[in-house]
């Protein structure tokens, strides 16, 4: 087994909805969806976003596309219209999700290496 950043297995997009933000996690390889589902939990995501989240964190599943959707309540300091936060749109929040560490079988392909091989 090896422990790597979620960025090697999944991509992510975030945005705003009022005071909340949503952050998706989409696996590159659908076969890895069960493993991601098991490890990218509300608890794990709370460890990442908890200190800036003033509400609940909820997780939804989209199995048909191998994706999870996290709704992070009250993470935008009152939302774009009134926040004093430097980044107001929630659009930069997803990259934090991709730092999450996940443990996978040693032979699991990593995105960066795959892309480098395709490029060469």
């Amino acid at each position, binding site marked *: 087994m090896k422990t790597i950043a979620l960025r090697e297995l999944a*991509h992510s*997009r975030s945005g705003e*909805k009022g005071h909340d933000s949503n952050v*998706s996690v*989409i696996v590159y390889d659908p076969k890895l969806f069960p493993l991601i589902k098991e490890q990218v939990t509300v608890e794990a995501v709370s460890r990442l976003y908890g200190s800036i989240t003033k509400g609940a964190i909820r997780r939804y599943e989209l*199995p048909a596309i191998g994706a999870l*959707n996290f*709704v992070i309540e009250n993470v935008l300091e009152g939302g774009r*219209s009134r926040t*004093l936060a430097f980044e107001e749109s929630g659009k930069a929040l997803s990259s934090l999700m991709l730092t999450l560490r996940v443990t996978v079988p040693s032979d699991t392909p990593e995105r960066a290496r795959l892309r480098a091989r395709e490029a060469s």
Partner: protein
Amino acid sequence: MKTVRLGCGAAWARDRFEHAANLVEHGGLDYLCFDSMSEVTMSAAQVAMMENESTVPYDPYLVDRLRPILKDCKRQGIRIITNQGWLNPIAAAERIVLLAQELGMDDLKVAAVSGGLLHRSIADMGLNFNETGRPIAQSKDQIVSAEVYLGAEGIVQGLEQGADVIITTRVADACVYLGPLAHEFGWSFDDCHAIARGMIIGHLMECGTQVTGGYFADPGYKDVPDLANIGAPIAEVTETTAFITKLPGTGGIVSEATCKEQLIYEVQDPAAYICPDCIADMTQVSFRQAGRDRVEILIGPAGRPKTDTLKALIGLNEGYMAEEMVLFAGPGALARAELTKEILRRRFDITGLDAEEIRMDYVGLNAVHRESTPPMPGEPYEVVLRIAIRTATRAEAEKLRKEVDPLAVNGAYGTGKWATTSPGSRVRPIVGLNSALVPRRKVPFNVTMHAVAR
């Protein structure tokens, strides 16, 4: 089988202008659709009009966007659907008629879809804010704007009446796509699966290039060719199939991955995406790469009947904010930024700054992910101290710059400053947004026709 081609002319008010012209010239479109709104658009427009009476009540880019394409669209039979009408779609429609006359066109029909503006009435409807549960009536004096997200029925009515251009007030963004699809395929608004299908296609299209490789590139992980020339999306829809594609020769990429990211963009519960005309189940959607830059959207039975309420956004006067930045670089940059932060804290005490909130971040260290930022090893070469305050009055907010500008001579070694030469105030009024659910029957809309006389 009938195929309808819709192109995205703009994803928001200040989107790139060339998408529309490219699509009109090369897209073989039936419809060109513009979304010109974000959540703050209507309240910002209301404030702009209060501050300057000569401000137009619709998208100030209306004419700039339509002038280059209006004639070509009419000639090709491309119908335009746009929500640039903002606070006054009728005034916007009249402006489009005038534009057509300026362009020497002798035939153009414009439909204005109005309604949904509740800033004068919402406080008396006995409703509560979704966010706080408090009665809206308690905030009556603060209300600057209030409008609901209307559905697509007004757009369909305008199209049925033969309009070449439909200009609306606030509708749910995806409705500028759902409307023409419902019209073309004769969908009943009671057919929730069909309406949800149109809404999902619209949802994928409404943010424009975010589905064709924009907001996607991550070098070494997700590479996107020729972003500087990115092409806007085209939806190609029949009664049973739907594809997302873009113009050949443009940059960007349409892949299952770009579509998946956009499907979940700004969605909360994907199984219950609540829209004005239906509840859509995004978990019924999957994608299939059907060719280069061409993805099929596969949509199962995704609809549930609409709710009996419409979502309203309410803009509230909430005071003022100001923001300043101070710059440091080289050895000791962080220590000097920290010293400056302490100096400012003391100065705020000494001058008795009355702020509701003070926020200080180190840009380059923790300004974006804030307190969630992982620890960084080593010392940064550059640090920007960014200070933001919120106050009840404008005069109080002005105090921030009066403390920051003097740091040039009174502050730490090597203090750099941003935009010191720009004169005047950098204080911004805050119109905070809350939402509420308004009974649908209390929100009528109406469609009016405006035409160039032949």
